[in-house]
C-alpha cells in the first residue's frame, strides 16, 4: 500500500505544477489587475501605482513572478495579500476553522441522512415515504442553494424568528464559549446545514437508490436468498456493501468543497467561511490569495482522491493496489 501511496504522490507533483501554471496564467490573463483597480480612486496617481508595483515585485516578468511564488509556496509561504497588507496564511488561517467545521459537519450529515434514505427508497420504492423522500430529493437537486437559503430566511422572518444568517446572534460572535453561545449556534446552524447539504443529500440518495436497485436484481442476491440467509444479512452484507462502493469515490471528490463550493450560499447566509473571502479576492484581483486558495483546493482534491482509493481498497477486497 505504501508504494501505491508513494507512486500517487509522485504523480501528484507534476499535476499540481501544471495546475499552478494554469491558475497563474488565467489570473495574468484577466484584464486590469489589483493595481489598475486602485487607479479608480482619484487620489491615487500613476506614480504611486508604479512604486507599489515595484514594492510587490509586479514589475518583474511574469515567469519570474511565478517562480518566486512557487519557491515561496514550496517553502510554505503562501504569498502576500495586496488588499489586506498581510501574509495570506494568516488570513486563510482566521477563516479556516469555521470552514472546516461547517464542511465536515455538512458532509457527515449528508451521508448520515442520504445513505439510509437511499436504501429505504430502493427497498420500498412504491411506498408513500419513498415518494415523499424522492420528491424532496428532486426539489433539492433542482433548486439552487442560494434560492433555498432565501426561501428559508423568508420563512424564518415571516414566523417572527431572528436567526436569519450567520452562525451566531450578533452578541455571541465575539463572546467567549458558553452554553448559551452553543445553543445560539445550534439555533443558527440548521439553515446552513439544509442549504449546503440539501443538494448533496439529494444526489447521494438518488445514487444510493440506483445502486441498490441495481444490486438487488443481481444473481448473487437471489443466490443468497435461496441459500436461506436472513434478509438482514442479504441486505447489509451483500447488497449495501456492493452498492456503496461507487459512493466512496464521490466522497473523495467532495473534499475540495471545503473551499470552493457554496460561495454564493455563504454570501447569502453570511457565513464566516473561506467562500466569500475567495469571491472578494477574485473581484479585487488579489492574485496571491486566489492562487493560494485555488492551490489548496487542488491539493485537497488530490488528497481526497487518494483517500477515496485507499478506502475503496479497504472496503472492497476485489480491488488490489496496482
Amino acid at each position, binding site marked *: 500500500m505504501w508504494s501505491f501511496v508513494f507512486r500517487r504522490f509522485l504523480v501528484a507533483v507534476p499535476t499540481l505544477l501544471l495546475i499552478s501554471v494554469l491558475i497563474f496564467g488565467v489570473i495574468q490573463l484577466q484584464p*486590469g489587475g489589483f493595481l489598475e*483597480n486602485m487607479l479608480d*480612486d482619484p487620489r491615487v*496617481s500613476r506614480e504611486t501605482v508604479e512604486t507599489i508595483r515595484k514594492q510587490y515585485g509586479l514589475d518583474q516578468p511574469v515567469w519570474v513572478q511565478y517562480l518566486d511564488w512557487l519557491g515561496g509556496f514550496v517553502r510554505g509561504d503562501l504569498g502576500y495579500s495586496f488588499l*489586506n*497588507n498581510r501574509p495570506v496564511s494568516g488570513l486563510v488561517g482566521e477563516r479556516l476553522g469555521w470552514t472546516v467545521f461547517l464542511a465536515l459537519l455538512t458532509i457527515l450529515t449528508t451521508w448520515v441522512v442520504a445513505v439510509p434514505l437511499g436504501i429505504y427508497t430502493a427497498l420500498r420504492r412504491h411506498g408513500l415515504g419513498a415518494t415523499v423522500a424522492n420528491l424532496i430529493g428532486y426539489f433539492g437537486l433542482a433548486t439552487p442553494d442560494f434560492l433555498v437559503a432565501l426561501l428559508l430566511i423568508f420563512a424564518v*422572518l415571516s414566523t417572527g424568528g431572528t436567526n436569519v444568517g450567520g452562525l451566531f446572534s450578533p452578541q455571541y460572535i465575539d463572546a467567549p464559549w458558553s452554553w448559551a453561545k452553543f445553543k445560539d449556534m445550534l439555533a443558527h446552524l440548521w439553515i446552513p446545514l439544509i442549504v449546503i447539504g440539501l443538494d448533496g443529500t439529494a444526489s447521494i440518495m438518488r445514487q444510493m437508490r440506483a445502486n441498490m436497485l441495481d444490486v438487488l436484481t443481481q444473481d448473487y442476491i437471489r443466490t443468497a436468498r435461496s441459500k436461506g440467509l436472513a434478509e438482514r444479512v442479504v441486505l447489509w452484507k451483500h447488497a449495501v456493501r456492493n452498492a456503496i462502493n461507487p459512493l466512496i469515490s464521490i466522497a473523495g471528490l467532495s473534499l475540495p468543497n471545503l473551499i470552493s463550493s457554496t460561495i454564493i450560499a455563504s454570501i447569502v447566509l453570511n457565513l464566516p467561511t473561506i467562500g466569500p473571502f475567495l469571491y472578494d479576492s477574485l473581484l479585487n484581483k488579489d492574485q496571491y490569495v486566489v492562487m493560494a486558495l485555488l492551490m489548496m483546493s487542488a491539493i485537497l482534491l488530490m488528497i481526497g482522491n487518494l483517500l477515496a482509493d485507499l478506502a475503496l481498497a479497504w472496503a472492497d477486497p476485489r480491488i488490489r493496489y496496482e
Partner: protein
Amino acid sequence: MTTRKALWLLSLVTMGALASAQPKVVSGYENGKPGGTLTMALSSAPQTLFYYGAIDSAIQTLANQMFDGLIEYNYKTYQIEPALAASWTITGGSKVYTFKLRKGVKWSDGRDLTADDVVFTYTQIVANPEAKGGDAGNFAGVKIEKVDAGTVRFTLPKPAPAFIHYMRLPIMPKHKLLPFSQEGGKKPGEINNAWPTNVDPAEVVGTGPYRLQSYTAGQKVTLVKNPNYWKRDADGNSLPYLDRLEYLIIPDSQAQVAQFLAGNLGQLNITGTDFPTLKQREVQGAPIRVVAFRALFGSPPHLAFNYDDKNPELAALFRQTEFRRAIQSAINRKRIIDDVYNGLAELPGNGVAPVSEWYYDTTRLLGSYDLAAASAALDKLGLKRGPDGVRLLPSGKPLEFTLTYGSNSSTFSAIATILQNDLKAIGVKANLQGILAANLLSTGRGKDWDAIVLGLGDQPDPELRTPIWKPGGDLYYWHQSTQPATPGGPPQFNNFFPWEKEIYDLWEKAASTTNFTQRKALYDRWQAIFAREAMVIMIAKAYAVGAVSTKYGNYLYSLGVIPGYNPVAIMYQK
C-alpha cells in the same frame, strides 16, 4: 507632603485641566441618556484597520467613529465647523492656514493630542505618495509645520479655496505610528503595514467617539465608547451616548435587509428599491422608521458617450452636442425616478447635488422627455432610418453601439433597460453589456466602450471633484484625448472643444478665487455649459434612504464613509 496637601494639589491640577479643556458643545438635538448598543452593517470585511493603508469603504466607515479631522461638517447644514482644531485663520493671500488645536483633547489611551500628531499625519502619511489611502496629489508643495504645541501651519504654493475641506482627514497618533513611517527610519511603503486586521486592538488609538475593542475576522467589529471624547451635549453631558457600536459584516444587501427586519441590526442604509418593503412594515406597525432625505453625497448616474470611440464614425457623432441633446430628449427621467427609485430621487444637478449651496438650477437645460423631438433632431443630423427602423450612419452602417452598465446593481440594470427601450423607439440600437459595477470606472477609463452608465460622487465643494469635471482631468474619461500626453504634463488643448476650453478656464479661475460669490458665479457658468452641451447626460439624483429601529433617538442619515460627517455620536437608545 501630607495627604491633605497632596489631595489639594491634585484637585488644583484637575481644575486646571478642566479649565483649559475646550469641549465642543453640540446643541439642537434631544438630550439622550447614556448607555446602549447599536448594531450596523458593513458590506465587506475591513482590509486593514489603518485608514490610510487602503481605499476601503469598511475602514472608512470605522475610521469615522475612531478618528477626527481638524474640521468637520455640521450635521444639518454641511457647513464647515471646528473639530480637533478649535479655530483657524487664513492669511497671506489665502495661502497660509493656521490651526489652533482644541485644548484638552486626549487620545483614547490617555495621551494628549498635540501639533506633532497633526504634522506627522500630514507629512508622513497623507503626503506620502506610497500610502495607499493617502492624498499626496493634493499636498504637493504644501509646507506643513508646527508653530507651537497647539498650533499647526499649512503654507500652500498657491491659493486653493477648497483646501479647507482636506482638513477633515483623520488625524493619527504619532506615538503609535512612528515606527511605520519614514521619520521612524522605514521605507515609504512600510506605512501601509500599520495596523493590519490582526493588530492588538489596544494599538489602534484615536480621538473619535469610539475605540476598537475587537475584530472577529470576516464577521464583526466591535467599538466601545471613548471616555476621553471631546464633545458634549447641550446639558454638558459627555458624548457619545451609546456604549457600544457593533458592525456585522454582511456582504449581501438582501441579507442586510433580512437582518434588519429580524431586529439584529439597529440601523441600515438602503436604496429606493428596498423602500416599499420596509415602509410597508413600518406602516403595519413594525418598530422601525424609514426616512428619506435629499442627499448631498452619493453618486448620481449619468450616461456618457465616448468622444474618442474606436469607431471614427461613432466618435464623430458622439462629439456633436446636437446628437447628445437628441439622446437626452429620449431619456425618460420621470419614469426612471418613479419606477427605478420608487419616487425617491429628484432631477439631477450637473456635477453638483441639487441640495448643495453650489447648485445652479439647470432643470430647464436638461430638456424634457419627447421622443418625437428626439427623432426630429436625429433626422436633422442626417441619420435616416433604415428598412428595419434603425437609423443609418453616413457610411450606411446601422447606428448601433454598446451600452455598458453595472449588472450587479439593480438600479443601473433597470436604468440601462429603460434607456435601451427608449433609444430603440427613436431608431438608435443600443446593445447592453453588463459588467461588475466595481469595474465600471476602469472600463470607462479604458478605450473599449461606446456608451456607459456610470455614477461619480457629489461632494460639498465642486473643487473637490476637479479630476472629474475639469477637461483633461484624470477622470474626464469620456474625452480622453484631452488628457495630458505625458503624466503630469499639460492637457492636450488642441483636442479641446471651444466649450471645453471655456470650462477649463472657469475651473482654473475658480481654483484660485477665494471669494464665495465669485466662485459660485464661475461654477454656475460651468454647470450651465455642462447642461447646455449635455457633456454627459445626468439621469437622476437618488435620495438618501435610511431605516432605523424606533429604539434609537437623534437619528440622522449618514453615508458612513464621508470623513468629517459622523452623526452617530449623538444617537442614543431610548
